[in-house]
């Protein structure tokens, strides 16, 4: 038996690369330090490079995960030069040529996050430790995103977040190895508020129902701040348990409170249920309060939620990261590619995963290396266009993408199952930009730390 270091595949070692390796006793270092000529975790040495797609496949977000997976597979096809190339044709950076990444064929492994931090980390670890994945992408909740991002930072691989909307992901929990393309709660508030003021007037009284966990709170904080800045009054903010299915006891007091707008800071099943309760049950949208028509706002929309809530979303305003109806060239190319392959338009979580995979591949090409630190450098401050959202900047200070935000409304008369939402306004990026040390984003104490290439 010879003791040699595995060179084909990277070896996961301690976060503080050198220090940790040196500090380990002899029996464990053995070959580990000797042959680390690759210099970073899971350096691809064969003809293939492996990406890890970590999405919810069981539990309430399984359909969203399935959609993300479709988009990720599409991205891999395009990277390998199969299919019609999709956004490779419209992407402003021309580094990708459809021959894989740095000439290596792209392969992928998949895992199930179960929308639980523990399971998501276990799944990501198995991709890193067993399958040699060099980048992890996907997910549909902020808790999972923050947990997996932290893991990737420790392990020394890149994390390209999927759907995660809480401020913390690129706020107080930001990490050098993690990147978020999706927008965040602050942006939702900043984009929505002017539209709300415009459509409903400035003297509105809002009642918030907020899912009682981290994402809900940041969302509520953001919306309250931006609506109050425009003259709205916040009557009450009520936290609802995540496990609630029937929201009647939270909705009954709304009308009596003198509020004339109900803001539902809910996501997924919570939002579907609370909106169904409010509209179909209590019929709030037909009421008149303070001489005004009662309104409901859902700050964060997704296509699947719109489907789940059915006709109850009619006329209800909200915001999105992306919608397939966006008319720009990148969006059109992506929708055509996705639609022809899968027979339906992509959801906004699918789009963010697709874009993230391409962005990662492109950064590697431009950096000329899979080394996470080189990738981080290539992505920081990167300006691009043609991936569906228009002109976008990956800000160096917090690894958050800055781009236009969509304000959408539940369509009155959808002609198919796919246009249940219509775009009301494309809020320009300038309006949703904030300083990296904004108080909602961890203030001055929030830092990225330094990039970790791992082994």
């Amino acid at each position, binding site marked *: 038996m010879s003791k040699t270091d595995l060179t084909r595949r990277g070896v996961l070692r301690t976060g503080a690369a050198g220090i940790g390796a040196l500090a380990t006793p002899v029996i464990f270092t053995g070959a580990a330090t000797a042959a680390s000529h690759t210099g970073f975790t899971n350096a691809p040495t064969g003809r293939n490079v492996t990406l890890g797609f970590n999405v919810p496949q*069981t*539990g*309430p*977000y*399984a*359909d*969203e995960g*399935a959609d993300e997976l479709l988009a990720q597979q599409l991205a891999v096809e395009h990277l390998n030069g199969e299919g019609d190339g999709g956004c490779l044709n419209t992407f402003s950076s021309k580094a990708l040529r459809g021959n894989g990444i740095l000439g290596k064929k792209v392969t992928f492994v998949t895992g199930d996050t179960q929308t639980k931090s523990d399971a998501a980390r276990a799944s990501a670890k198995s991709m890193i430790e067993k399958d040699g994945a060099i980048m992890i992408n996907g997910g549909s909740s902020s808790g999972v995103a923050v947990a997996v991002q932290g893991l990737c930072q420790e392990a020394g691989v890149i994390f390209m977040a999927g759907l995660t909307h809480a401020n913390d992901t690129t706020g107080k929990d930001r990490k050098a190895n993690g990147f978020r393309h999706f927008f965040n709660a602050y942006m939702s508030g900043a984009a929505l508020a002017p539209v709300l003021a415009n459509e409903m007037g400035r003297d509105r009284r809002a009642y918030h129902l907020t899912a*009682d966990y981290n994402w809900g709170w940041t969302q509520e904080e953001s919306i309250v701040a931006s609506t109050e800045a425009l003259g709205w009054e916040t009557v*009450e903010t*009520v*936290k*609802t*348990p995540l*496990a609630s*299915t*029937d929201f*009647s*006891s*939270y909705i*009954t*007091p709304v*009308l*009596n409170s003198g509020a004339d707008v109900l803001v539902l800071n809910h996501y997924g*099943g919570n939002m*579907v*249920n609370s909106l*169904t*309760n409010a509209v*179909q*049950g*209590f*019929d709030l949208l*037909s*009421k008149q*309060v303070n001489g005004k028509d009662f309104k409901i706002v859902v700050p964060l929309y997704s296509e*699947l939620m719109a*489907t*789940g*809530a*059915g*006709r*109850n979303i009619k006329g209800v305003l909200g915001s999105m990261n992306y919608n*397939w*109806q966006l008319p720009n060239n990148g969006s059109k190319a992506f*929708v*055509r590619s996705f*639609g*022809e392959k899968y027979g339906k*338009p992509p959801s906004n979580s699918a789009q963010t995963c697709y874009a993230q995979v391409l962005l990662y591949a492109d950064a590697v090409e431009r950096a000329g290396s899979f080394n996470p630190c080189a990738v981080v450098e290539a992505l920081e401050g990167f300006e691009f266009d043609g991936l569906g959202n228009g002109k976008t900047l990956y800000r160096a200070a917090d690894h958050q993408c800055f781009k236009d935000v969509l304000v959408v409304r539940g369509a009155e008369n959808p*002609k*198919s199952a*796919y*246009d249940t939402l219509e775009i009301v306004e494309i809020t320009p990026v300038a309006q949703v930009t904030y300083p990296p040390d904004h108080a909602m984003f961890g203030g001055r104490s929030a830092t990225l730390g330094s990039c970790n290439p791992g082994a």
Partner: protein
Amino acid sequence: MDSIILQVLNGLDKGAAYALIALGLTLIFGTLGVVNFAHGALFMIGAFCAVFLQRVLSYSRISIDESQKDFLGNPLKVETPFVEIWFGPDVGGSIVDWSVPLAILFAIPVMIAVGFAMERGLIKHFYKRPHADQILVTFGLAIVLQEIIKYFYGANPIPTPSPEAFIGSYDFGVMLGFDANRIIYPYWRMIYFAFAMVLIFGVFAFLQFTTFGMVVRAGMADRETVGLLGIDIDRRFTIMFGVAAAVAGLAGVMYTPIVPPNYHMGMDFLVLSFVVVVVGGMGSLPGAVLAGFLLGILESFASTTWATTTLPGINQIIIYLVAIIVLLTRPRGLMGRRGVMEE
């Protein structure tokens, strides 16, 4: 005052749902002595009976409309439900609209069949086995059932609205002399409450006033003696399992307009229904109903702003807190009998 009335209404409505779900569970406990972790799955299957019927009724003929474009720019496929083609848009439309109430008729035979199949095919072999084995096998069954539903219907909730006529709410406040919009309550929730009451009293009457029910009650009290009298108690217990499944299923059907069903909803209610049954007292039907209403009303009041500001988080834990207090002060639950499931 108005907010108290509102929360009482909410509590009665929630309580009706809890009681209905717990009723079937406690029936199975009481008669068969089986800890059925698949009971939530029966509730879920009932809800998907409504989804299934809705899908069947709106099964459509697909025609190509050249004048409109779909998202890829191809001609739009327009779907017209066959019932609208056959019966005209008005009648056909209202058939689709009434799919949830119609699903009640559909769900009864389906759920009884599911119950029979479960009891004869699986549960029967577990009467003599320890409760732990019963838990494992019924939990396994629950997972299998919900995965099957997920395979066909996906994980996303599916909107199943009530008929148009029942959308909206009734203004109780005006009736009681309050201003408009002070006390409003949705029609469908009132129907749910009434439906639950009818079902609960139906089950009670069935057990109380029929010979069949008398034998089942005798069997619950002393299975062996009833068997010695030459009565085929097993067959009756099978029928009771079918009845329990039907009650759970109907609870599910009627719940769909309140909360759009997903494959996971059974698990969401499983823990709660066990708590209700245990608080009520194992195997006690009136206990389950009483506990259902008690927990429903307390939960509603715990979710008021007043309660949550006084005791933060009280709305998250009230059910469990009540369960602990009841179990410590009344050893066998509110109305449980001595010696049932206490080994």
